[in-house]
């Protein structure tokens, strides 16, 4: 573990312990509200102490910012597919693979929306897809085509020979807006063809 990470963890541990202690002291009636008030007034009156408090605040923000970045970076690093070449290592982020799969929605017109989730483990690359189809789609034929396209695209672009497992979940069948609009137009035409149709009974 890097020195800075250890320092960050220690820092947060100290802060949380201090808050916990303050709560315990307050609950035991050892610290009166007046004391806190006096301390705050003292800090407010002195320009030096205000400057120190302000700078401490800034430092705290910077430390939190760096620490959050380290943690987020570590989580990101875990979600990758990696292989080594003669010049070094190549890691492919799983979100990049997800981007790639998302682009396939544009290739198949029957797919309205596609939400992939990619996991890489010992079994290989597992792609979990939630799709929204257009109403005219033949589901068994389409899903099998989508599986084939996704598998070949992943193997082609990533150049990996690992097993690719593709699971598809059809979440919704959406009605095409064009069809709906056509229906609405037809209904309008029908109603306008009937004379005096706009009049209601008194």
């Amino acid at each position, binding site marked *: 573990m890097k020195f800075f990470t250890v320092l960050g963890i220690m820092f947060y541990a100290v802060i949380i312990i201090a808050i916990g202690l303050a709560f315990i002291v307050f609950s035991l009636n050892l610290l009166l509200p007046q004391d806190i008030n006096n301390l705050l007034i003292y800090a407010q009156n002195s320009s030096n102490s205000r400057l120190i408090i302000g700078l401490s605040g800034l430092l705290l923000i910077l430390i939190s910012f760096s620490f959050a970045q380290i943690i987020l970076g570590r989580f990101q690093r875990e979600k990758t597919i990696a292989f080594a070449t003669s*010049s*070094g290592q190549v890691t492919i982020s799983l979100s990049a693979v997800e981007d790639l799969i998302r682009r396939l929605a544009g290739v198949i017109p029957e797919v309205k929306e596609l939400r992939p989730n990619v996991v890489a483990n010992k079994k290989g690359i597992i792609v979990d897809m939630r799709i929204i189809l257009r109403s005219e789609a033949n589901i068994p034929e389409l899903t099998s085509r989508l599986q084939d396209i996704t598998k070949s695209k992943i193997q082609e672009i990533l150049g990996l020979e690992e097993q690719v497992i593709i699971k598809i979940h059809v979440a919704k069948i959406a009605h095409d807006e064009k069809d709906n609009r056509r229906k609405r137009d037809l209904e309008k035409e029908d109603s306008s063809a009937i004379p005096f149709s706009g009049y209601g009974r008194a």
Partner: protein
Amino acid sequence: MNPDELRNEIGSIRIHKNVISSISSIAAMEIEGVKKIGSNLKSSLFELFDQKLYSAIKVDISKNEEVRVEIPLIVKYGYNIPDISGRVQENVRQALEKMSNLSVKEINVNVKGIERG
């Protein structure tokens, strides 16, 4: 002597990590299929203030003057990723060795995304 410091009979030459990062960035962008260099939290923040000096490319120089570079990449859709990565590694290695005379130990490519259409 600093690890990124070269000496000759007249004096010393120091190459800043940003220079190595810039060379790597330009060399990587020369490869067809590379959309852009990926960003991290720091580089995005610097870009907000129009400071493009800070690149997301990480550079480490060891005590024995060996350079280790980590390049985050966004690639274009439709290109073979291992092929692009290999070409990037080779081009960056050539550019660094040609321009800085430093020995390159490792060039790690991290493909972070595919260009969205």
